């Protein structure tokens, strides 16, 4: 009996502890913004980083008098890096907390799972880092009315890299080393081919998981070309860079945000990572707008470290919502949604963005140059 009583006591105190965190209802002088983020589980690193950026933005806006005099009330919930949980969190934010807008989730899959929930509740969702093209449009290429993002979509990177190759690197010809097993790489290849003004000399393919690329590299070694376009993730890209450089292939190598991991340099050996360029969402070395410097300083002051792309994108998401709420002169989700779709020339820390008809931000990308494995230069490439 005693045991049972003890159990009851402990359980009820646990529940009580849980109940303590509950926020009180909204009032007319606040605007509620929800955060549906991966705070635990496999990709908690993304969610945590974005939440830091979001919190900083909210703090700044509130210190500055809020949105049209209304203070932001941030309701942050954890979706455990689980798609079903993301849908559940989106529903609870939209229907129970009655937020005006939702920031997150961070990954494309979780955003897709949240689409029905926010569409039903008619609440806008801004994802900081869901880059899959299919996030904002459905299978029939119809735009998802309530889904927005502050990062550029995958296909845009191919376009940026093609522009960069022909303008900055004056490349007349390119070789594509593609990955035919991933959608990410296929999309990147497609948009690069479409945009690149020079000649595509050859296109060779590997499969993700491959370790030895000697065959394809030997094949291209004696060809005449200016750049290598390598859409893929860091695990294969690192090895390809290493093997290509060791083989004496010295042409510049271009890749997308899949390169953006320290593991790339480890796999390739720093001494081999020269003349490697990739698109990034944000770099502390390039000021995308006038606001970037202030953000970096404020972030360092708050968290005592350099901001990452996820920090910056989370930060921009909140300011984008602020901009839309101000344009709409309302905290109603429906009006904010309409205003979000019309945002033009919004100055964020990752670039100046205008939301296009597919709800993608038209903005500049950062192309980072790696020399001896270090970030040596970052260039802003405007969308054209």
């Amino acid at each position, binding site marked *: 009996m005693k045991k049972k009583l*003890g159990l009851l006591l402990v359980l009820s105190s646990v529940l009580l502890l849980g109940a303590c965190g509950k926020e009180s209802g909204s009032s007319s002088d606040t605007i509620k913004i929800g955060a549906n983020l991966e705070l635990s589980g496999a990709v908690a690193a993304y969610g945590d980083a974005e939440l830091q950026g979001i919190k900083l933005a909210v703090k700044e806006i509130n210190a500055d008098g809020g949105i049209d005099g209304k203070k932001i009330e941030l309701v942050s919930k954890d979706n455990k890096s689980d798609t*079903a949980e993301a*849908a559940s969190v989106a529903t609870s934010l939209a229907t129970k907390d009655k937020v005006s807008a939702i920031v997150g989730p961070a990954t494309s*899959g979780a955003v897709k799972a949240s689409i029905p929930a926010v569409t039903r509740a008619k609440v806008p969702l801004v994802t900081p880092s869901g880059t*899959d093209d299919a996030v904002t449009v459905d299978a029939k290429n119809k735009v998802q009315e309530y889904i927005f993002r502050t990062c550029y979509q995958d296909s845009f990177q191919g376009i940026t890299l093609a522009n960069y190759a022909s303008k900055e690197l004056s490349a007349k010809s390119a070789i594509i080393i593609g990955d035919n097993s*991933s*959608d990410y790489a296929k999309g990147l290849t497609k948009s690069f081919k479409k945009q690149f003004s020079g000649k595509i000399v050859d296109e060779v393919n590997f499969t993700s998981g491959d370790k030895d690329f000697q065959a394809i590299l030997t094949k291209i070694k004696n060809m005449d070309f200016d750049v290598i376009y390598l859409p893929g993730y860091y695990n294969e890209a690192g090895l390809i860079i290493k093997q290509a450089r060791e083989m004496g292939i010295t042409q510049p190598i271009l890749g997308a945000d899949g390169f953006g991991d320290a593991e790339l340099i480890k796999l390739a050996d720093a001494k081999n990572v020269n003349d490697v360029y990739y698109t990034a969402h944000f770099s502390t070395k390039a000021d995308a707008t006038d606001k970037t410097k202030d953000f970096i300083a404020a972030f360092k002051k708050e968290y005592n470290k350099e901001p990452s792309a996820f920090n910056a994108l989370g930060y921009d998401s909140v300011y984008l919502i602020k901009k839309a709420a101000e344009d709409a002169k309302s905290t109603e989700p429906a009006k904010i949604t309409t205003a979000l779709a019309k945002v033009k020339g919004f100055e964020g820390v990752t670039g100046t963005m205008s939301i296009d008809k597919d709800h993608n931000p038209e903005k500049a990308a950062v192309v980072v140059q790696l020399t001896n494995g270090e970030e040596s230069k970052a260039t802003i490439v405007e969308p054209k």
Partner: protein
Amino acid sequence: MKLVNRHTFAWLIVIVISFLAIEGLVSVGILDVFYEMALVQIGINIILGIGLNLIIGVSGQFSLGHAGFMAIGAYSVGIVYLDNPTVTGFFLGVLLGLVLSGVVALLIGIPTLRLKGDYLAIATLGVSEIIRIAITNMKITNGAAGISGIPLFDAIPMRQLVFIFVVIVTIIVVNYVRSSDGRATLSIRENEIAAESMGINTTKYKVMAFVIGAMTASIAGGLYASYFNTIVPTNFNFMKSVDILIIVVFGGIGSFTGTFVAALVLGILNTLLQDVSDLRMIIYSLALIIIMIFKPSGLLGTKEFSFSKLFSKKIKKAKKGGSTDGSVRN
């Protein structure tokens, strides 16, 4: 034996009352969209838990591969239903999932169920990882990006569909356990050598339980795919199997009532704790640890709620001249 006796009739009433209660609460607006979502998730977890409890609790085989079979069901429905968004398409998807998971479980079960204990756990874990990685690399499943935009089953509300499947799965599994095949399966859990020496084909019954369990998981996967519209391979990783295992162990291995209670308690706990984002997993885990310390055999141990027991108890009491009030005891 009559098909409808006092006990089955009592269960029928319980089913109807709980169905009406849910519908009533929804119609007056107490169960809003959010709670309905939690309820559907609980229902799916009950189906998963019951299937795994059949494998672990009844046949005594420790499987860590339940998420793999759930993935088969989810992708079958995802692919077929997306291609043919009608009621027929949905059920064809479910059927395909049942057949596929049944065949896979049979092929895998025959060699692996000769293993025991930890070895079996590792083998089943491997199988579920193989299924997941195969899905990640197949074209028809759209690789790592997964399938999105799967239509919501809308002939009847999803909560009703899940409810119906929970009832069907429970009836099938519980009746299996009470059949002669089920008794044979139970005997393997109690003592495999003794069962074998009594002439029971242990491999056959182990495989049978394993296949039924896998098929129920595929049903749950199908419901999941349609309800959440998006499935990605990482949904069905090792942690998903562990989540299901937690429900079974928490409720009491071998007790189906326990699985129901555990899925409900954990589902409610998870929903209530959503408001404390950072602390949630800590509180959730603490609750698990505390329960396991105080009730190491799970919430209900191996106890099962049954009307026949209840009735016979009442009769006994009435004979003794004790109180005959209808207080529920198990």
